[in-house]
């Protein structure tokens, strides 16, 4: 057997080799396999590696003074392995998918740069979760952010993409700064950036330092994860990036924020099981509920497929955060088993979201690849032209809507059970506020189903809404295979959730192990009776049994009948065309009307008349409806414009004349001399 360490080094080298091969390759026929096969092997090995860690011992590897003053410390424990497993599975599927998908870019751009960035991006994420030193954590974090930034603006011909890339760059560095401060606070206490020393001495930190570390980490990692109101980069960067990169970013990269938060909260910031820390959890629950609800509300009115998915990522990060926050609250009141339940819910949803969001972004990528449009209003009817893509996309849509028997249902079920268990917290204020926090979560789950009905129906069903559908073909086999891997993972984790549940509880050393594959979850109430049980394999069996029974019953009962095909019922009009269909915008109109305070939707209609004096004979009506982004308008725009205003003022000192610069130098020297003199006095 190869040791874990060698395996780890091999994985890193494979990705680096892939990156080098990428740089060296030309735009030839074999360029794409050459670039994407090394990360495929690397990802597969990463999956094996993390399973090995989860079942065995943690890996610890230190290279002293790799960079002067800093040791490269690698520490892969269960938590890191859990996230590595997630990265491995998703990046395996995405690499496979990319072989076909990047053909698109081979024509217009240099694929070699893409290959280089892709490999570095994936390996930087693997290194982020395995580094055990603040300095290297930040280095890899920055590497991940920068490579993803370059990948976002890879399609740099469109000015829009450059703009969203810049927003992403600014926001991600804003976040990094907060993470840096959080680590710095730890450094000031321990004198070392090593996580080990932080881990050992953080329980004795002053309470204020712990709180500050948490708050800074929350803002920093929250920016990466896309918590409202720090989410503004997410719906811009995800749609701009090539779809395979969006899949990686949304499925895995934003989870690095969750990873960092979990690390800081449960490992590094000296969390203690006292009610003093309950407010950490409450902050997460509140931020999570807000993110979930606002994310899904923006998703349901959006008409760009990829932006819908991006907003839905914000929503799912919200659900993950609610679970995480509940876990912290329970832990701070010594409710260990409930804390485990909430943490399992949160982590299971993390990995589930990685699967279905990766799948959905790849599905969206296939649609864009085939039709060259992201606009739902122009799509439709693809279910006949792209049968496999639509089937796999449907699996993703059902999973993300939290419907049985797929994986999203199980993790949302766990999260709801964790919410229901909040009645055991011995604090009335918390009980009531958590109960009320379930309100936005339930609304989110309802709206999410609507969002994905809308997304699937507008993209794949009914008639095409524009004249593009002549040359559309199903995407290549490796793209379908990439999606199929994640779709089967969704189905597997839905039907046998004990796999995912035991995986998350092993990673976090929780006492929460399903006793058999059939027994997914069983909770008990105070009097020892069953609080709730869920056994998805049996549910799946019952569903299929029911299907067989109904099919047989109808077969026996019904007479000999025929099925004929005829036009859609149009009240006999006979000329139903695609312009009369419901569109994405009209479908969500009731939702827009109900939540109009949030959207501030603006309708505008312009009538052209035959005769100006006669308002009844109308030649044409132009109707425009737009929604506004209140976060952009009320939070970011004032900040950006005031920053620009201040910087404009400051710019005036840059006169360009040598005399004035000499004056600045002289003034500086005088000020410095004065400073030195005064400080010595």
């Amino acid at each position, binding site marked *: 057997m190869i040791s874990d360490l060698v395996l780890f080094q091999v994985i890193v080298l494979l990705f680096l080799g892939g990156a080098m091969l990428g740089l060296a390759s030309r735009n030839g026929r074999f360029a794409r396999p050459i670039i994407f096969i090394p990360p495929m092997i690397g990802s597969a090995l990463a999956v094996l590696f993390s399973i090995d860690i989860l079942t065995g011992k943690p890996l610890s590897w230190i290279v002293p003074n790799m960079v002067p003053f800093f040791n490269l410390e690698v520490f892969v424990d269960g938590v890191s392995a859990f996230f590595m497993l997630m990265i491995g599975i998703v990046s395996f599927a995405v690499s496979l998918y990319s072989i076909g998908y990047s053909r698109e870019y081979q024509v217009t751009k240099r694929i070699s740069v893409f290959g280089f960035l892709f490999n570095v991006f994936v390996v930087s994420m693997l290194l982020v979760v395995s580094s055990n030193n603040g300095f290297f954590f930040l280095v890899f974090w920055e590497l991940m952010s920068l490579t993803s930034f370059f990948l976002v603006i890879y399609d740099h011909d469109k000015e829009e993409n450059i703009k969203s890339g810049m927003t992403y760059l600014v926001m991600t560095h804003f976040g990094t700064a907060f993470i840096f401060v959080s680590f710095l606070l730890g450094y000031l206490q321990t004198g070392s950036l090593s996580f080990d020393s932080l881990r050992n001495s953080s329980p004795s930190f002053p309470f204020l330092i712990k709180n500050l570390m948490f708050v800074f980490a929350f803002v920093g990692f929250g920016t990466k994860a896309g918590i409202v109101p720090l989410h503004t980069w997410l719906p811009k960067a995800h749609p701009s990036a090539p779809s395979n990169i969006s899949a990686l970013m949304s499925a895995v990269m934003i989870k690095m924020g969750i990873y960092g938060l979990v690390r800081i909260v449960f490992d590094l910031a000296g969390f203690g099981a006292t009610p003093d820390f309950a407010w950490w959890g409450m902050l997460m629950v509140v931020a999570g509920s807000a993110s979930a609800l606002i994310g899904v509300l923006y998703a349901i009115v959006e008409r760009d497929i990829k932006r819908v998915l991006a907003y839905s990522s914000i929503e799912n990060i919200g659900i993950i955060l609610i679970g995480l926050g509940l876990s912290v609250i329970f832990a701070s009141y010594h409710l260990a088993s409930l804390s485990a339940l909430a943490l399992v819910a949160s982590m299971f949803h993390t990995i589930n979201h990685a699967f279905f969001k990766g799948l959905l972004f790849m599905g969206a990528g296939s649609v864009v690849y085939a039709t060259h449009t992201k606009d739902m209003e122009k799509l439709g009817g693809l279910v006949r032209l792209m049968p496999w893509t639509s089937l796999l996309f449907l699996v993703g849509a059902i999973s993300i809507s939290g419907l049985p028997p797929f994986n999203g249902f199980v993790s949302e079920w766990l999260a709801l059970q964790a919410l229901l268990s909040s009645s055991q917290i011995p604090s009335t204020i918390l009980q009531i506020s958590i109960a009320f926090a379930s*309100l936005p979560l339930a609304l989110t789950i309802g709206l999410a189903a609507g969002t994905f009905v809308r997304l699937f129906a507008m993209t794949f069903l009914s008639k095409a809404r524009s004249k593009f559908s002549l040359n559309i073909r199903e995407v290549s086999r490796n793209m379908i295979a990439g999606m199929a891997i994640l779709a089967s993972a969704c189905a597997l984790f839905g039907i046998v959730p004990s796999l995912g549940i035991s995986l998350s509880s092993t990673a976090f050393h929780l006492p929460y192990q399903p006793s058999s594959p059939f027994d997914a979850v069983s909770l008990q109430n*105070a009097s020892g009776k069953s609080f709730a049980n869920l056994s998805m394999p049996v549910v799946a069996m019952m569903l299929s049994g029911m299907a067989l029974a109904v099919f047989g019953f109808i077969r026996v009962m019904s007479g000999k009948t025929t099925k004929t095909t005829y036009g859609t019922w149009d009240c006999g009009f006979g000329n139903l065309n695609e312009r009369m269909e419901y569109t994405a915008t009209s479908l969500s109109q009731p939702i827009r009307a109900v939540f109009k305070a949030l959207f501030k939707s603006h309708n505008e209609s312009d009538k052209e008349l035959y005769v100006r004096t006669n308002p009844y004979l109308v030649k044409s009506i132009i109707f425009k409806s737009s929604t506004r982004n209140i976060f952009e308008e009320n939070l970011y725009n004032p900040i950006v414009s005031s920053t620009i205003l201040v910087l404009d003022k400051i710019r005036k000192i840059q006169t360009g004349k040598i005399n004035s610069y000499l004056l600045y130098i002289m003034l500086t020297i005088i000020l410095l001399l004065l400073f030195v003199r005064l400080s010595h006095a």
Partner: protein
Amino acid sequence: MPSIPDIAIGIIQVLVIMALAPLMTGIMRKTKARTQKRMGAGLFQPYYDIVKLLHKDEVVSDQSSWIFRISPWVNFVAIGTAAFFIPVFLTPSPFGLVGDLILVVGLFALARFFTMLAGLDVSSTFGGLGSSREMMISALLEPAIFLAIFVVAITYGGTNLSTIVEAAANSALLSHPQLIFAAIAVFVVILGETGRLPFGNHSTHLELTMMHEAMVLEYSGKSLALVEWSQSIKQLVLFTLIANIFVPWGISSSILPLALGIGLLAFVIKVSTLAVGVAFLESSVAKWRLFRLPDLVAIAIASSMIGLVFYYL
């Protein structure tokens, strides 16, 4: 491992629900007819309708895909499976170990997901209209459902329906005042979920006033039979829920034949009374404007919230 008789009675309960479901629709139609001083169709009319539809041909839209074709089946299978988790006339259920109230809500949501897709699949404006409205109402109802579940679950210690119904059957009358508020919420939810007035009108012929009917306007023959039958099963499942959680009188806790008989009788009487009540309500209110419905849902949510605060304080 539950015993064979337990499972058998569980399955019999589902068959009872499936068999009685069209009868409840018949009772409601009859009641509505009587309030209009009409004789109305016989109580068994919904059965005759279903049998007739099973013998009719199908006309399928040329714009439709396999989604449209499987939707009635998914609908029936999801709703039929949900019926397994509801105690009908016997409290201990072996299926309580498999799923709970939230799974029931999830299965209903699965059925609705496919119905909405089918409405949009045929590129008909009516289907889109129905799906659009259903999307809004169902999303708004979700918090009302969950908060009501919240109140019930913390009162009776679980979302496992057997636990809930057993605890309810053993508790004294009105010992949990918060449940009254939850019951109000659940009642509004049932009206919304089954598309009863003031949410929607089952007997409407005008497409513009439709909600659920607009989505199934394209179905014919077998598919329509499945849609209608599963719709009545869903209605009866919801009636059974409200009857057995909030008025668990007469429900049997053992598998003795006499107790089961009394349980079955009590069940039929309870749900029929509820059906008659809902039909009376339908006869006395008009359909609300679509954008007034959120107010009604808000009342349901507020009611559950009051129930929650009642419990905790």
